[in-house]
């Protein structure tokens, strides 16, 4: 056989193994997709979607654009490995085709070209070819060097912590680290013997020839290279490196419009295995600030993959969505976090006791929400504003009302939530209103996503801004310096960032803070987390407050009653809702001095310390 030598066997076997394995696995996932998703694939396959998926694969899986954005050094590491290897294979193949003029030369011929043609034969563009091959190898080796360095010193990557490895990963990892140094050695040894090679392998060859018995080392080094490749390929499906092929698969599915559902499916499987364990989410998730170990998305996904997920971990997530904003793979972590929750409860609440409530006809329905009822200042301000603007409105839950259903959804109880949704939905529908306004971003999101209402759904910040712009209320700008906290559910949850800011600029001066908009921090009191103790939540709140205070503001503004209540507890700075600021600016005189005393002096730390003690006693 022309292109054969026994040392290629580990590589070839590994390659065929991984190829078969992945094809079978992906076929099973596709088979497990729900029917509507399969139809989406069928419809999208011969359209531009396939093309854009290919483009995305190139940008994300090879260039790692998103990792670059978050962290350039980490991005370079990923890119040099992925892109470098891809180029090495691509140009290697082109080179062999150009040389052998045989389109069907076997795969390993390109990989081990130097072994089969040690004398660097000449062919079309061969000079460029040898130069490029050395360059790509060097490119990859810098990436490997960084990876090794990262294992031991993760600080230079700006990451506080790096992910832990399991045994299967260690195998694949060591193989991956060894592949390219072995290639370098094998090619250098061969070059040294045959006086060939370009700037890298050539000079190293001369160097090694000076003091090493190259005849004896050449052949074993090719074996080592092939073995490293083979081991890597065989270990890949059982290690974190499955993410490399799986992410590409995921990108295609996503481009056909498939989304994470309420149950585990082939798609969520692909998402779980696509996590590259880059560790970006560890620093971005505020559970880290709270001191919760091993609760961040990367660990959650790892436990899901290993079927080791504990109820504690399933319930410990704020659902703030910060991780998703940074995750380079774009995994729908929030949604995945909810699926196991559903498996923990029976989801059989019974709200048959709710009375048949009366509706009132009105132009606008105002739904304050449970949390607003616990912050009466917002309620009062809203009434003030609506009256002043002479709106024909109905305050739906003036006497308490019924929960919007979102807290139940966050507990994974979709069916139970449905009952509440249907109840409120009927009330809103019967009122004949055209606009539904709510003060609570938590309600806002569920109104938009689950209520399927035929009315315009607005958060009060949007509605108030509209009233101001239409001249229905007039505001006096004051001298107050105001920092704004983006509530998770309003910002990342519903994409509303500008309306509250515009309003603030009409009532005072907006000062920026460290973490804003998409990167905003969670206040820590989210309804998404069931496990977080009061003490842990407090850490998160204090950390967020510090970051918000960087501009030294007089007042902290927010547009969520829950955030307001949480931050007020610290007693550091007056916290006001957008509605309250507006109501004040409506009545106040120009240039009035900001009030500073209407916030509690003391916080309630005594209760939280006791929780820590008790937890220690019990566990």
């Amino acid at each position, binding site marked *: 056989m022309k292109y054969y030598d026994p040392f290629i066997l580990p590589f070839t076997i590994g390659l065929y193994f991984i190829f078969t394995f992945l094809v079978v696995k992906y076929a099973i996932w596709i088979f497990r997709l729900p029917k509507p998703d399969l139809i989406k694939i069928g419809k999208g396959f011969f359209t531009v979607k396939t093309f854009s998926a290919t483009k995305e694969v190139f940008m994300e899986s090879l260039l790692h654009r998103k990792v670059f954005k978050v962290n350039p050094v980490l991005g370079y590491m990923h890119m040099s490995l992925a892109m470098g290897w891809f180029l090495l294979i691509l140009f290697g193949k082109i080179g062999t085709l150009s040389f052998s003029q045989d389109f069907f030369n076997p795969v390993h011929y390109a990989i081990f070209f130097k072994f089969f043609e040690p004398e660097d034969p000449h062919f079309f563009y061969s000079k460029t070819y040898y130069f490029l091959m050395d360059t790509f190898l060097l490119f990859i080796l810098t990436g490997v060097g960084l990876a090794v360095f990262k294992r031991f010193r993760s600080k230079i990557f700006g990451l506080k912590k790096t992910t832990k490895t399991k045994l299967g990963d260690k195998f694949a990892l060591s193989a991956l680290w060894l592949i390219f140094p072995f290639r370098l050695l094998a090619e250098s040894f061969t070059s040294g013997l045959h006086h060939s090679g370009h700037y890298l392998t050539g000079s190293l060859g001369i160097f090694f020839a000076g003091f090493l018995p190259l005849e004896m080392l050449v052949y074993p080094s090719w074996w080592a290279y092939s073995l490293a490749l083979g081991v890597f390929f065989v270990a890949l499906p059982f290690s974190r490196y499955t993410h490399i092929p799986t992410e590409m698969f995921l990108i295609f599915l996503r481009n056909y419009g498939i989304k994470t559902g309420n149950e585990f499916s082939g798609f969520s499987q692909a998402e779980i295995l696509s996590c590259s364990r880059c560790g970006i989410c560890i620093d971005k998730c505020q559970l880290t600030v709270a001191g919760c170990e091993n609760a961040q998305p990367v660990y959650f996904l790892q436990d899901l993959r290993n079927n080791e997920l504990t109820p504690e971990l399933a319930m410990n997530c704020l659902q703030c969505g910060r991780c998703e904003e940074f995750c380079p793979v774009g995994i729908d972590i929030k949604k995945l976090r909810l699926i196991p929750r559903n498996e923990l409860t029976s989801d059989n*609440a019974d709200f048959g006791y709710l009375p048949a409530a009366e509706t009132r006809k009105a132009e606008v329905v105002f739904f304050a929400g449970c949390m607003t009822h616990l912050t009466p200042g917002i309620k009062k301000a809203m009434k003030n504003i609506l009256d002043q603007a002479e709106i024909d409105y109905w305050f739906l839950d003036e006497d308490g009302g019924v929960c919007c259903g979102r807290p*139940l959804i966050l507990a994974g109880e979709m069916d139970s939530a449905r009952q509440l949704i249907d109840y409120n939905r009927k009330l809103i529908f019967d009122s004949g209103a055209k606009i539904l306004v709510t003060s609570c971003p938590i309600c806002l999101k569920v109104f938009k996503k689950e209520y399927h209402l035929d009315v315009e759904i607005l958060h009060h910040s949007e509605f108030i801004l509209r009233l101001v712009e239409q001249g229905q209320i007039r505001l006096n700008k004051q001298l107050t310096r105001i920092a704004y906290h983006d509530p998770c559910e309003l910002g990342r949850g519903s994409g509303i960032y500008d309306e509250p800011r515009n309003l603030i600029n009409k009532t005072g001066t907006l000062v920026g803070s460290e973490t804003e908009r998409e990167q905003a921090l969670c206040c820590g009191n989210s*309804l998404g987390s069931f496990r977080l103790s009061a003490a842990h939540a407090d850490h998160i709140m204090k950390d967020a407050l510090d970051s918000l205070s960087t501009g030294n503001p007089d007042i902290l503004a927010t547009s969520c009653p829950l955030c307001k209540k949480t931050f007020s507890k610290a007693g550091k700075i007056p916290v006001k809702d957008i509605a309250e600021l507006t109501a004040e600016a409506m009545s106040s005189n120009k240039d009035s001095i900001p009030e500073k005393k209407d916030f509690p002096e003391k916080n*309630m730390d005594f209760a939280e310390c006791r929780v820590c003690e008790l937890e220690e006693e*019990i566990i």
Partner: protein
Amino acid sequence: METPENNKTRFGFGLTKGRQIDYDANDKKLCRFVVENEPSLLLCIGCGGCTATCTAAGFTDFNFRKLHHLLRRGEVFNLEKSMKNCMLCGKCKLVCPRGVNTRNVIFSLKRAFKMTDFSKTQ
């Protein structure tokens, strides 16, 4: 748990079922499970803040303070049914002066009732 069936009217007098607490018959396993999952329950001082704010308590005789008392005593016979009234809205958690994570208490109970270990207490 006083339900209408417990009060039978005879000759114009209400007969209430005995309210003796029989600790031997009561089941504290559930309570242990919940406390293990949510230790902050032990901080409760029974102030009733949670109950005053609870939406479900406005319509039914379910409320968190009562639920906690019954759970502690091990009188868990009607708990599963009454718990279905809770909307998990979290108002109780927000007003609690002791930082009791009430939502997780209720969720832990829901979990317990789904698990076979506790099914005989239903």
